[in-house]
């Protein structure tokens, strides 16, 4: 299965439109994380089929339960992930100057979105979705 980079909001943002656990982005790996993308988001490498990647991109709000990340990564620190001053990226080693990201070996297995919620259409106020108008 191809590798994808899944970006998840690490905390609630200003207007509440993006909240902790929201999937912000699923992309082909570029192995680079921006200087301001380290503290606000958790980047997770995932081996997925194309259909799985698409389903995660369509995942509803708060699709990722951060408590489950601790099950998958023994030393996952939820408090650090919420700290806006902490460039906490438990799944990647990141070069501070170049932003180049290398996958950590300690990830136990693939991480899946909350299995209790199925992918669904987001309301039109959510990014990346269409309201059907043309």
């Amino acid at each position, binding site marked *: 299965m191809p590798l994808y980079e899944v*970006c998840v*909001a690490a905390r609630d*943002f*200003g*207007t509440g*439109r*993006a909240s902790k656990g*929201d999937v*912000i*982005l*699923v*992309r*082909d790996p*570029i192995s*680079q*994380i*921006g*200087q*301001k*993308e380290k503290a*606000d*988001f958790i980047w997770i490498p995932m081996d997925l089929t194309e259909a799985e990647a698409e389903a995660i*991109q369509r995942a509803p709000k708060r699709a990722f339960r951060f408590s489950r990340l601790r099950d998958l990564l023994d030393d996952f620190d939820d408090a650090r992930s919420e700290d806006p001053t902490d460039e906490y990226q438990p799944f990647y080693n*990141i*070069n501070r*100057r*170049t*932003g*180049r*990201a290398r996958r950590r070996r300690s990830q136990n297995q693939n991480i899946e979105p909350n299995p209790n919620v199925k992918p669904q259409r987001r309301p*039109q*106020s*959510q*990014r*990346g*979705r*269409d*309201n059907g*108008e*043309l």
Partner: protein
Amino acid sequence: MASSRTAGTNENISTFGDGTRDYTAISTWEAATDNVLTTSMISEVLECYDDSTPYSMTSIQFAGAATSADYRRILRAAEGHRHNGDPTAGVKFIVTGSPTFGFRLQENFFVLEDIIVTVDNPGGSTTNVVRADLSGDHRLTGVIVIDDAPAQPGSKRGFRIFPNTGTTILRNCAAIGMNDHGFFLSTGTVNADNCTARDNGDVGFNRTSGTITVRNCLSDGSTTADFSGTFDAASTDNASSDATAPGSNPETNQTFTYIAADDPRIANSDVGAQELGADLSADFDDDIAFRTRDVPWDIGCYEASVPTGSGGGGGLAVIYRRRRRS
């Protein structure tokens, strides 16, 4: 004199590009700046660098921030990384996945400047490459939408603009080679100034409803018609390769000469649009390449024959213009 570009009040500038920049994805900047800007009293700006263009991305929707004419969100190419009218240069985004839109502006006062956008649409759906709706007062300047794969079954429209409030303004923008409309404008109030539609598969500038004003707009080689619909009476000095240029002082059935194929810039040798436009310097005074226009203005996004010192053109161009006037 005023530039066609928009500056926000108290700009907080972040950068987009590779890992040395602030952001490697537009959607992360969009999420992180989704704030009440009218309270924080800052404008959030994302300046894009062509570190590894074209950037492949999924569709992006800008919405949610509380904005005003002073405090707004702006996405623009960084200085030194602009295309300056050349569709093979500068910051370019390829939106993949047969999306129904590429960049969607759904936030009042959002500004998009000096980037190139194309869409990979092999799936057969209709894609509005740059779409603005359910909001208003957007500003689009120097944006080029180009179809790199017109043979794909998917229908691609360049600009689909239908605001529901305020006035959306497009200046010095270009739609090139789309297999559907270049500019599809409707519903609200839209002004298109000095925009260029070239070789589009349906209509160059299509107005179906709303108060749509086109000034100094150039449409060439559209399959159905260069201009279609009833435009506002303030429309003036437009040019077309067929008989459809609307408004006052239309230049119809013109032949245009360009710098290159699939390029919106008219050449110095052009006689179809050069020096045939209205002077709009009461509103703005520059072209897609950031060069100050001179009177008489050219129609379309690019001012041919601008002297060196205004950003390009060169001395020979000055000589040419003086000869034409003599």
